[in-house]
């Protein structure tokens, strides 16, 4: 089964691609005509990654192979894979679109996503590597009641993965519909099926290589794009900024902070969620088990931070250059954005981009390198989504098989073969759920979901993880209380925020001009500023009040945990092959 299946499914996959060609030609206006260049480049990527999956499947025998690629990934490779896991299509297309629309605000967002990495480096990377085996729950539950802490960690992992996955699937469907001219549901199914093949057959090895290839493609594509764009301004950022401010409807305002950040509380809260959320994302934390030791774990963060930071600088250049360069191409705009002479109207520059501002990077690719480069960037965007969802699904499946099944249900007595089988079934199940939810949420507003995923990661996973590593007095009860308090407050506050209460649930109030505007029950857009302290407070309070016998044992066990954490004595090694 392992030898044949990837190729059989590839054949099945090609069918919808072929079928899609005919009806898509007459699709809605904003959709692309079927893009043959893009599809053939993407198919090349698919064939290459399926080849890797086939190779990976033959090396994936033990649970360690499946969850961590045998622990033999180098720091450099893992750094690229982490970057591949983290640089989503949302950050490539979304942030360049944000820069295009509001200039400097886009940079503020990128910086928020980046600064979590040093924190991971200083407080978590090597500690996680030394203490854990397959999932971050290994670390969080190290000296605690396995059943309770693992259940909680698995639950919050699954919640984070679910929200992140829905946002990715919906984004994938819309993007691919736009780029490739495929129907929305076909795009979602294609992403879901490919991702299942990578993970089920190739486990972490295939997932890692898909992420590495995607990272290299994305970094080289955006590098070319940024350099080509800058060359149009004689490599002078000043010249680029000058022309951009002349064309952009808000003029010089794009050169400083704008409306993204409304008030100090929301600014800090968003910053907290971005910074500490990164340090609590299960699919990111899982990557630290793929390297052989603490030294390589540190190197991975160093390389990842470099790649991600470089990438954000490129998206910033791309967004700014697009303001000037797209305005020279009226064909990229809706008819109503053009003057009688056919030039782009400055005041319609932002609203008039055909396909919306998320398409800015893609349009710029076309402007720079014609259809060939457009095809390349479209294929890269598709590959980007695939790599991210594969990583997410693997993390979700490990939470089910390694944490829930092996440690909670089988209590460590299940066989390794059963555990791997369960994680494959879990991947299949999660894939189906992702496809189903992706289709169900097609016309829903999912913008809040990535924010919510980061908020939950920052408020439930991060505090428990940090306290279990650094605070010897924490007990099982304290961790449970803090973790659930963080999870619960993050979800409740998000539901009460404008993004969900107003935009999704449709609660409105009359605005200044009498027209209804969406409102929230509270003025807080992101819960982190409340929910992170709530989690730490409950960890602290309940742990201090806990004087049970178990709590005493756990406090004593911290000494051994700390030695392993600091020195790596007793840590999981790399597999021998």
């Amino acid at each position, binding site marked *: 089964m392992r030898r044949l299946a990837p190729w059989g499914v590839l054949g099945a996959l090609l069918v919808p691609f072929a079928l899609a060609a005919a009806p898509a030609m007459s699709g809605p206006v904003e959709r692309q005509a079927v893009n043959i260049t893009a599809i053939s480049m993407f198919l090349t990527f698919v064939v290459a990654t399926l080849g890797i999956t086939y190779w990976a499947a033959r090396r994936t025998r033990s649970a360690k192979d499946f969850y961590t690629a045998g622990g033999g990934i180098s720091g450099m490779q893992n750094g690229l894979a982490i970057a591949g896991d983290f640089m989503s299509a949302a950050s490539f297309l979304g942030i360049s679109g944000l820069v295009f629309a509001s200039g400097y605000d886009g940079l503020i967002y990128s910086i928020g996503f980046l600064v979590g990495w*040093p924190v991971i480096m200083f407080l978590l990377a090597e500690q996680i590597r030394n203490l854990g085996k397959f999932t971050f729950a290994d670390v969080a539950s190290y000296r605690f009641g396995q059943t309770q802490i693992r259940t909680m960690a698995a639950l919050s992992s699954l919640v984070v993965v679910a929200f992140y996955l829905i946002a990715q699937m919906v984004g994938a469907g819309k993007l691919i519909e736009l780029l490739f001219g495929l129907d929305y549901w076909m795009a979602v199914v294609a992403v879901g099926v490919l991702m299942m093949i990578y993970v089920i057959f190739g486990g972490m090895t295939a997932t890692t290589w898909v992420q590495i290839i995607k990272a290299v493609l994305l970094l080289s594509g955006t590098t070319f794009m940024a350099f080509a764009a800058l060359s149009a301004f004689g490599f002078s950022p000043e010249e680029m*900024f000058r022309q951009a401010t002349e064309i952009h409807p808000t003029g010089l305002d794009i*050169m*400083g902070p704008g409306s993204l950040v409304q008030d*100090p509380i929301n600014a*800090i809260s968003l910053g907290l969620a971005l910074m500490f959320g990164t340090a609590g994302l299960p699919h990111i934390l899982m990557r630290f088990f793929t390297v052989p030791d603490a*030294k390589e774990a540190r190197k991975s963060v160093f390389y990842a*931070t470099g790649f991600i930071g470089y990438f954000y600088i490129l998206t910033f250049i791309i967004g700014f250059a697009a303001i000037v360069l797209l305005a020279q191409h009226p064909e990229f705009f809706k008819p109503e954005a053009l003057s009688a002479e056919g030039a782009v109207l400055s005041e319609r520059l932002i609203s008039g981009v055909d396909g919306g501002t998320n398409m800015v990077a893609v349009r710029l690719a076309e402007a720079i390198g014609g259809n060939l480069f457009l095809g390349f960037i479209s294929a890269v965007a598709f590959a980007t989504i695939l790599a991210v969802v594969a990583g997410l699904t693997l993390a979700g499946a490990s939470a089910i098989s390694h944490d829930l099944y092996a440690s909670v249900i089988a209590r460590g007595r299940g066989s390794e073969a059963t555990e791997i089988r369960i994680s494959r079934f879990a991947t299949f199940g999660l894939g189906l759920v992702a496809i189903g939810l992706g289709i169900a949420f097609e016309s829903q507003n999912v913008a809040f979901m990535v924010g919510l995923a980061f908020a939950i990661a920052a408020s439930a996973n991060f505090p428990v993880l940090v306290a279990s590593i650094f605070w010897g007095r924490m007990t099982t009860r304290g961790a449970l209380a803090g973790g659930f308090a963080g999870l619960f407050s993050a979800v409740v506050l998000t539901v009460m925020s404008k993004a969900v209460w107003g935009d999704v649930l449709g609660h409105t109030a009359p605005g200044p001009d009498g027209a209804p505007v969406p409102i929230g029950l509270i003025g807080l857009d992101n819960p982190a500023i409340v929910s992170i302290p709530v989690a730490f407070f409950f960890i602290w309070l309940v742990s201090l009040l806990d004087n049970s016998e178990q709590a005493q044992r756990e406090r004593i066990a911290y*000494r051994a945990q700390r030695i392993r954490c600091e020195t790596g004595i007793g840590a999981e090694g790399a597999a021998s092959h």
Partner: protein
Amino acid sequence: MQRKTIDAIEANPHYQELVRSRKRFAWVLTLLMLAIYYGFILTIAFAPELLAVPVAEGAITTVGMPLGILIILSAFLLTGLYVARANGRFDRLTKTIQEEAR
């Protein structure tokens, strides 16, 4: 891990030095990153106009642009600083401790 081994390692001056110096170094760098980032966020929140000042008379480029890039670079440099120290001095100490624990 045996109780005896734990006691021995905890009493090892190399171990104490490792724990102390790594803790200090990691928290100093963490606080530095937090200070840089929240300094930036608070400037945006309370005095956004400071970032919109041109870098020179008549220039379009604002102070915020190089500053933003510098923050990105600082994140990279701080992680580099940690790796340099950890892969050198901390790992040498760790190796000594591991050998002495044998």
